[in-house]
């Protein structure tokens, strides 16, 4: 039953409105302006980008807290940007051109390692251990070292992430695989499973030569990378190998064998990796559940649910920011600093941050639970 007079209701509503404004001075009150600005920006987007020298537009806050459209231009000679669009103020900012994706693999890494640099394998009793990941290793090759594929028509090297073990629960048998990225051993979807081969070292570290004696595996399967804007979750591929060709641990001077027990990334988790270009590095998980665009030779690809890592190194008692990875480290297995638990598969980065696929997503992709096949990171246990 409605017993409150209409005028009293309106008075109550007015009171609540004023009270709410004091509680939420910038909350929902800002929502309508933002939507209006977004609509205005989208409406003007086409015209703005026809103006020579306009490189980007966005929505921002003015110094007085008002939403406004911000237009980024190459230099202060750009003319024709309107001052107002649909009643929304437009601010012009000189930003220069934004950096384009660097996609040319053959330009990365730089160091063409000579076959046999450092000599010897990593396990020889009393011999000097070769822990230069860009060199050729005696078989079985350790993990974290230079690999490449026969499919690219250019000189290239990435990293052997780890040895995987596909264990069949029904028969008790195991099959072994090399784990790396699609863009390292499957040439961004262009390689052919059961045809293209994996080489150690990669051709970039071998005078751009493809040699039969360097074969350590055959491409078996890969997750295709979508370049059409559809979301990707992993950049991964596996090649079938043998325990005689591929080992399960890093060179003995590094961290040794990864654990077969994976660990989900958490913000603040300390991690490390051993890779072809920057070797052993340390870092910390900076963000998880990340959406990100990544540049490839074939274009940009959108990834969801990724891990971002920031590199760091110890200086005295403190940690300082440092590089975690660079071109050629793609495919590296990222493990927890304590316990060597697999956390991620490194596949991209920039000058400050590294991006990795969650390792469980990778292992799930290449497992087949229905057939009793479980894929795990091989820790060398029988």
């Amino acid at each position, binding site marked *: 039953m409605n017993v409150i007079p209409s005028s009293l209701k309106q008075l109550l509503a007015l009171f609540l409105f004023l009270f*709410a404004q004091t509680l*939420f001075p910038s*909350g929902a009150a800002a929502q309508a302006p933002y939507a209006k600005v977004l609509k205005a920006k989208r409406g003007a987007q086409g015209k703005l980008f026809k103006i020579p020298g306009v490189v980007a537009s966005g929505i921002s806050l003015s110094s007085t807290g008002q939403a406004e459209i911000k237009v980024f231009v190459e230099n202060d000679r750009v003319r024709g940007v309107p001052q107002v669009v649909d009643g929304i103020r437009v601010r012009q900012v000189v*930003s220069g051109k934004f950096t384009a994706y660097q996609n040319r693999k053959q330009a990365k890494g730089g160091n063409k390692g000579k076959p046999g640099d450092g000599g010897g394998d990593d396990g020889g009793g009393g011999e000097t251990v070769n822990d230069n990941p860009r060199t050729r290793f005696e078989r079985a090759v350790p993990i974290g070292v230079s690999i490449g594929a026969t499919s690219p028509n250019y000189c290239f090297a990435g990293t052997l992430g780890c040895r995987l073990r596909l264990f069949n629960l029904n028969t008790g048998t195991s099959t072994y695989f090399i784990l790396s990225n699609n863009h390292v051993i499957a040439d961004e979807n262009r390689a052919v499973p059961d045809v293209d081969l994996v080489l150690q070292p990669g051709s970039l570290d071998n005078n751009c030569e493809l040699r039969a004696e360097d074969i350590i595996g055959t491409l078996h399967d890969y997750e295709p990378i979508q370049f059409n804007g559809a979301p990707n979750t992993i950049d991964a591929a596996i090649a079938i190998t043998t325990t005689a060709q591929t080992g399960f641990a890093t060179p003995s001077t590094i961290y040794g064998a990864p654990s077969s027990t994976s660990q989900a990334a958490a913000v603040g988790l300390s991690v490390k990796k051993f890779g072809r270009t920057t070797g052993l590095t340390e870092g910390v998980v900076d963000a*998880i559940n990340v959406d990100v665009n990544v540049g490839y030779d074939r274009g940009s690809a959108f990834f969801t649910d990724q891990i971002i890592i920031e590199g760091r190194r110890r200086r005295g008692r403190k940690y300082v920011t440092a590089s975690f990875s660079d071109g050629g480290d793609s495919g590296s297995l990222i493990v927890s600093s304590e316990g060597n638990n697999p956390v991620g598969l490194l596949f*991209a980065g920039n000058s400050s941050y590294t991006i990795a696929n969650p390792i469980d997503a990778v292992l799930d992709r290449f497992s087949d639970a229905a057939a009793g096949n479980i894929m795990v990171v091989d820790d060398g246990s029988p």
Partner: protein
Amino acid sequence: MPLLVTSWWLMMAAHEAEPFEDRCQQVRQLIWKMSGVQAVGMAESGGQPLVKVYFESRESLEAANLAARIQGVRVETVVSDAFRAN
């Protein structure tokens, strides 16, 4: 007066106890559409979860803060180059 009541109702509706994850997701979707955004993820500071945004240019940072204010979600922004496959 009806307009006033409607405004009040809309405002209150926007601030109803929406799950934190949903508000984060809305903020992330808004931010992802902004120019210069390289990546958006979840991080934390002082044990409190927050949305972390990696921007190409410092010029874009204010826009993310605006989106965050709308939903009452904390946002941390850092400047970051474009990401590329390694």
